């Protein structure tokens, strides 16, 4: 008659299973949204900085990044290794003018406050007359880096807001960054260079 005990609890078990199944489905559906990732940062409204001078926006989503990882002609295996762990690379670069410099600096400071309040770690902070630059990282419970943010103003008359989301090997990224030491972003123009059509 132990079956009898089970039969009453079985009814409850079915109910709980259905509820669990519902929430699981919702979670699975929500998982595609990269903005829910802990390493993702919304920089807010940057449209006002898109003045008459140059602006560049880069958005490389997971789909594109993994395609790149597979077929890129880049020979450096480190590049491939980095690409595979990433879910999103986004960058907004603006040309600095007298009109927007102070606003850009204010933006950098507001992002700084936002990230410091949201458990991001600032690992680089540069202040000088000519420029401001900050680098932040977000770590998960296993101390892996799952987000990287760079904000800079004044570097070669450009302001940049970069967010990289995914599993990040900071050492490799830094090394590669030095390797690709390109003075200016190519194609600074009036149009947005969006690679993702979404």
């Amino acid at each position: 008659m132990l079956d009898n005990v089970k039969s009453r609890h079985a009814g409850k078990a079915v109910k709980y299973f259905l509820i669990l199944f519902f929430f699981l489905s919702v979670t699975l559906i929500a998982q595609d949204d990269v903005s829910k990732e802990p390493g993702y940062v919304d920089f807010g409204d940057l449209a006002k900085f898109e003045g008459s001078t140059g602006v560049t926006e880069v958005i490389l989503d997971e789909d594109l990044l993994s395609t790149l990882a597979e077929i890129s002609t880049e020979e450096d295996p480190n590049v491939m290794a980095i690409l595979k762990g990433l879910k999103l690379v986004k960058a907004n670069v603006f040309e600095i003018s007298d009109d927007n410099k102070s606003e850009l600096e204010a933006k950098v400071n507001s992002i700084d406050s936002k990230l410091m309040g949201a458990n991001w770690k600032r690992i680089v902070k540069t202040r000088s007359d000519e420029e401001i630059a900050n680098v932040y990282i977000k770590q998960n419970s296993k101390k892996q880096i799952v987000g990287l943010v760079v904000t800079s103003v004044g570097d070669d008359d450009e302001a940049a807001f970069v967010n990289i989301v995914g599993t990040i090997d900071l050492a490799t990224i830094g090394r590669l960054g030095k390797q690709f030491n390109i003075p200016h972003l190519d194609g600074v123009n009036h149009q947005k260079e969006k690679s993702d059509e979404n």
Partner: protein
Amino acid sequence: MQKKDSNKIDQKLIDKIISVAYGDAGLFERFYVLWKASIDKEIKNLFDEFKLTVKTVRKLKKEEVSDPLIKLINNNTTGGVQSKSFISFISKFFYNILGNRAIPATALGLILVIAASFLIFKEPSQQRKYSKVEIELAEKQFKQTLAIVGRAFENAEKSFSLEILDKQVNKKLNKGYYLVNNILIGG
């Protein structure tokens, strides 16, 4: 037997003990009784006695109705004739497999079918094809973004303004050195 301290095991507590032993109780009651049992031997013994009873009750074997009686009943009702039509076969299958659970089983089945369809037919995000131009541009932009990151570290190296991440590397820097080298380049 010693006179029992009536404050120790009052009617309310007994009711709780019974509830917990029979599996009816809520979480709080369960913790309360188990705690009480852990600090008072008499309560524990009472609880164990009830649990023993419950265990035995739940293990009782059910009596089975004898087959001759069922045959007799069938003869007095359906006449003992089993229909061999296809509809009866399907009905039998339906009743025997799903039985009283037809409605929840059907509902569950529908939910599973809908969920499976969604997962199978939802727009695949991994299968998009990119043109050569798009790939080249993406590659270039990726490197340019990394360059921005690299420059931020390089500038920091130059201006020696650094906030240390890890306590283990929390030491004073010589102006000629830049700790991030150890982090970035791997020391």
